[in-house]
């Protein structure tokens, strides 16, 4: 079949989603994309995170090779200048000319800058693209004060960005309240109080008449009543659809802008479509990404002549966090519906305001406003979207109650209920994916995209998963094994709360049978995390996993490897000499590990104590290479030698390694410290990564190398030493308390409802009130640390277990080696066979 030419103008969030949706279906198009920006589509919704550490790459929405793999012609940094609808031809700003059969406008919108005199002075900015942010960052470096003109949703977000950049920040709003579109007056007032308390000054009811030179600062804003000085100005006075192209081409546009489309996104020219923020449907522009994604999905189906679902509008409810203040707006927040009644809850002390807007018969929810606490958002949204019958007294939905609210079980939701609005995933869609095998949050996210955009629906998605698994009878048996009817987390709490110190007690009180190789090591690890008793104590030794059992790593031939700790990878020549001597004396295969230390292989169990006696004498300690415990803290050379280093990364690595050495956890833990942003220690692939900045340290968490690499996420910036350690203490103890057995921090994080911001809340803002307890728990582990090997070689009882045979001191003669490149190694199977033949011949 002859291919049709499909031309897409704009590679923003919605344009890119259209490409992805098309690439998932069979279609008949040759696709060309004009991308005006210097970067392919990126996540505009999380634009502000660019200022808090996310890189442009991390914000990218385009998988590497996406365009190549899907045979899409991608014209970077070229805009469409004009369209000739008659000849069906588009002209690019760099001279590209394309004849199309079908054209899609996905040109989004631009920030509106009111034409006040002085609006175009140097130092006036807008907030829409990565380039805008680069410009703001550059400029802000030389500024002390900033003002955002516009106190809507985006304006407040921009204000947060400015204050994060260290500017004394003001917000100027024409309306008498903040966020006039989403909130009512009272909600706006509470938000204002909270934001002022955070150090941002809010000026309501001010209209800027002109901007002139300031006396102390670069600019002065002149209002009808008064004036305000600032070095940097940021306009956020609303957005306007980028419809100029369409206008020039003669397409119908709305009175106040926007390309007019029908239910199938066709413009007045049936071969030209428009989606996203540029499209005007039933006189409405949708300035959120979720409706745009819905348009993309439906247009893709329409272009492929599948079903061709009509667009039916979108819900504009929003939930967000502005400068740490939770704000939610659902449906008819201003109570404009005829007969609407309201009920309000307000706690002036905590700064919580909640309002419900219900129908005059009090049966259905029409809207809601939430400020300061949005925990009810998800369930309220479902009440509104699905017109679920309200409880007898609707106020019970927002009143804080000790017994808990009438829970809106996800079971009550119809299959059509939309759970994830960003990606239009219904409850039925989730259930289907669960049935087809997505039985973890991670898998479900990947398959359906639910919870992968704003993350607001994550807790609902999890509830659906749990209830559906239960309903389908898919064994959500999360019991650790047949001996204990609970999870590892459950065991941890039992042990900690009931102060249980032995497996016998644990089994008697909470388990059955004799235990096994799953629950025993888990219990041993929990005991160690809680009480730090000697792991080879006769009461505990039988629980230890193979390697912990002999404090070394078992190799395939039954011999062991020895990995002494080399904190931060720093080692003196004298100590190197000791390692060399020991390796020579016992003929151990010697290798530098991937973790900046030295591994000595091929020690028989009976040799371990002798080897360790020599090592301990020379000042070495156990490296816990055998334990689900802290492994290494990798470091780069840092400021002591490196010409770029800004902090002493080796010193910090050693400090951290010595603090957390011996810490038993659900799985192994790795850390690294880099001396500057060049990141030679690869800290962003570790469970805990520390990267030096001019002002202190950036902390990254939950990275992983290994089988499923995961980049660590920026957790907090510019920390001083003490805060850094405090956060790590809390982070690690929280992980130890709540992770599953053998769950690395990366997987733990991927399954965490509420994601990174929840974790930040717990660790940084102490939202669970646990911080001091977690710190105390860690401190007690730090204080009770002893090197297991030092203790073992001093304990004749513990040493008995290292005898080769209980009734004979001759070593296992079946451990034999061949030599290669000057060192020994275990023989391969064929070499072994050969050896035994030779042996027989000899006899």
């Amino acid at each position, binding site marked *: 079949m002859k291919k049709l030419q499909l031309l897409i103008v704009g590679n923003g969030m919605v344009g890119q989603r259209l490409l992805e949706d098309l690439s998932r279906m069979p279609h008949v198009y040759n696709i060309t994309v004009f991308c005006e920006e210097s970067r392919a589509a990126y996540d505009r919704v999380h634009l502000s995170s660019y200022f808090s550490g996310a890189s442009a790459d991390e914000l990218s929405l385009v998988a590497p090779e996406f365009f190549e793999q899907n045979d899409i012609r991608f014209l970077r940094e070229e805009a469409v200048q004009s369209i000739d609808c008659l000849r069906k031809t588009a002209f690019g700003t760099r001279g590209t000319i394309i004849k199309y059969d079908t054209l899609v406008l996905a040109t989004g919108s631009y920030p509106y800058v009111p034409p006040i005199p002085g609006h175009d002075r140097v130092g006036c900015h807008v907030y829409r693209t990565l380039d805008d942010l680069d410009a703001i960052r550059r400029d802000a470096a030389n500024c002390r004060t900033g003002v955002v003109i516009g106190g809507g949703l985006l304006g407040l977000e921009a204000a947060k960005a400015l204050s994060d950049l260290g500017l004394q920040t003001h917000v100027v709003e024409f309306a008498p309240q903040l966020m006039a579109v989403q909130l009512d007056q009272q909600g706006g007032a509470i938000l204002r109080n909270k934001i002022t308390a955070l150090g941002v000054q809010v000026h309501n009811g001010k209209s800027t008449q002109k901007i002139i030179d300031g006396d102390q600062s670069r600019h002065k804003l002149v209002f009808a009543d008064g004036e305000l000085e600032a070095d940097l100005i940021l306009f956020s006075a609303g957005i306007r659809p980028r419809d100029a192209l369409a206008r020039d081409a003669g397409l119908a546009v709305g009175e106040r802008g926007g390309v007019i489309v029908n239910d199938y996104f066709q413009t007045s020219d049936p071969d030209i479509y428009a989606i996203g923020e540029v499209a005007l449907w039933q006189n409405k522009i949708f300035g959120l990404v979720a409706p745009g994604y819905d348009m993309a999905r439906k247009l893709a189906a329409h272009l492929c002549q599948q079903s061709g679902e009509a667009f039916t509008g979108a819900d504009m409810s929003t939930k967000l966090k502005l400068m740490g203040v939770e704000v939610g707006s659902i449906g008819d927040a201003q109570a404009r519906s005829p007969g609407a009644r309201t009920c309000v809850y307000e706690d002036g002390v905590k700064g919580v305001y909640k309002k419900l807007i219900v129908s005059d018969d009090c049966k259905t929810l029409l809207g809601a406003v939430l400020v300061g606490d949005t925990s009810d958002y998800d369930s309220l949204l479902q009440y509104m979207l699905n017109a679920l019958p309200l409880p007898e007294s609707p106020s019970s939905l927002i009143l804080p109650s000790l017994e808990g609210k009438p829970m809106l079980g996800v079971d009550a939701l119809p299959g059509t209920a939309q759970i994830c609005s960003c990606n239009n995933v219904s409850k039925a869609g989730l259930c289907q994916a669960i049935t087809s095998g997505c039985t973890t949050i991670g898998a479900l996210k990947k398959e359906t995209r639910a919870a992968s955009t704003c993350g607001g629906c994550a807790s609902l998605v999890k509830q659906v998963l749990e209830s559906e698994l239960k309903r389908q009878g898919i064994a959500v048996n999360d019991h650790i094994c047949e001996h204990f009817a609970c999870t590892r987390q459950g065991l941890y709490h039992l042990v900690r709360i009931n102060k249980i110190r032995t497996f016998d007690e644990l089994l008697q009180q909470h388990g059955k049978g*004799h235990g096994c*190789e799953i629950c025993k090591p888990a219990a041993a690890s929990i005991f160690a995390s809680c009480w730090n008793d000697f792991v080879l104590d006769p009461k505990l030794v039988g629980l230890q996993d193979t390697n912990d*059992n002999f404090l070394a790593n078992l190799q395939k031939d039954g011999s062991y490897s020895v990995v002494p700790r080399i904190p931060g990878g720093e080692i003196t020549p004298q100590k190197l000499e000791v390692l060399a001597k020991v390796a020579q004396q016992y003929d151990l295969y010697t290798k530098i590990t991937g973790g900046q230390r030295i591994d000595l292989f091929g020690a028989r169990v009976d040799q371990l104590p002798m080897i360790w006696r020599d090592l301990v004498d020379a000042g070495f300690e156990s490296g816990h290479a055998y334990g689900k415990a802290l492994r290494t803290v990798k470091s780069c050379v840092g400021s002591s030698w490196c010409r770029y280093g800004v902090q002493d990364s080796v010193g910090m690595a050693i400090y951290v390694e010595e603090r957390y050495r011996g810490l038993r956890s659900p799985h192994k833990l790795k850390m690294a410290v880099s001396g500057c942003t060049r990141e030679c220690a690869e800290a962003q692939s570790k469970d805990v990564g520390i990267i030096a900045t001019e002002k202190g340290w950036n902390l990254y968490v939950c990275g992983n190398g290994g089988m499923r690499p995961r980049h660590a996420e920026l957790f907090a910036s510019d920390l001083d030493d003490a805060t850094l350690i405090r956060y790590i203490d809390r982070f690690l103890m929280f992980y130890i308390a709540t992770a599953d057995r053998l769950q690395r921090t990366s997987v733990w994080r991927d399954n965490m409802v509420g994601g990174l911001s929840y974790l930040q809340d717990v660790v940084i803002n102490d939202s669970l009130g646990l911080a001091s307890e977690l710190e105390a728990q860690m401190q007690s582990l730090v204080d009770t640390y002893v090197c297991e090997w030092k203790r073992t070689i001093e304990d004749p009882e513990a040493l*008995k277990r290292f005898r080769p045979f209980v009734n004979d001191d001759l070593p*296992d003669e079946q451990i034999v080696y061949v030599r290669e490149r000057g060192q020994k190694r275990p023989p391969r199977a064929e070499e072994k066979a050969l050896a035994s033949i030779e042996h027989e011949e000899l006899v």
Partner: protein
Amino acid sequence: MLILERSTNTTWHDVCAMDDIIVGTGVAARLNGEQLAVFNTGSGVFAIGNFDPFSGANVLARGLLGDIAGVLVVASPVYKQHFCLKTGQCLEDPEISVPAYETRICDQSKRIQIRVDSV
């Protein structure tokens, strides 16, 4: 149970003292040139071959003890297959088993003896 057998059956060998095995663990022992793994589970003493057929190493004495649906087992420390302490049968693979030996406790519960068929 305490059986002090004074018969002439020479196939019982004294291996070690009860105290030599920490409850819940095992030790390796050598008898007639064979390597054995001897365990004290707390509810009994058991002996099987020390050779792990899956890894080809003499390591079963260093495995973790437990039960799977009531069958007392040791898990190989290398690749974690389970072997029945009473019969030596591998639970994962019916074709594979290791030798199992009779044990008894003598001398007022102090010594462990194992019966090995003479070679």
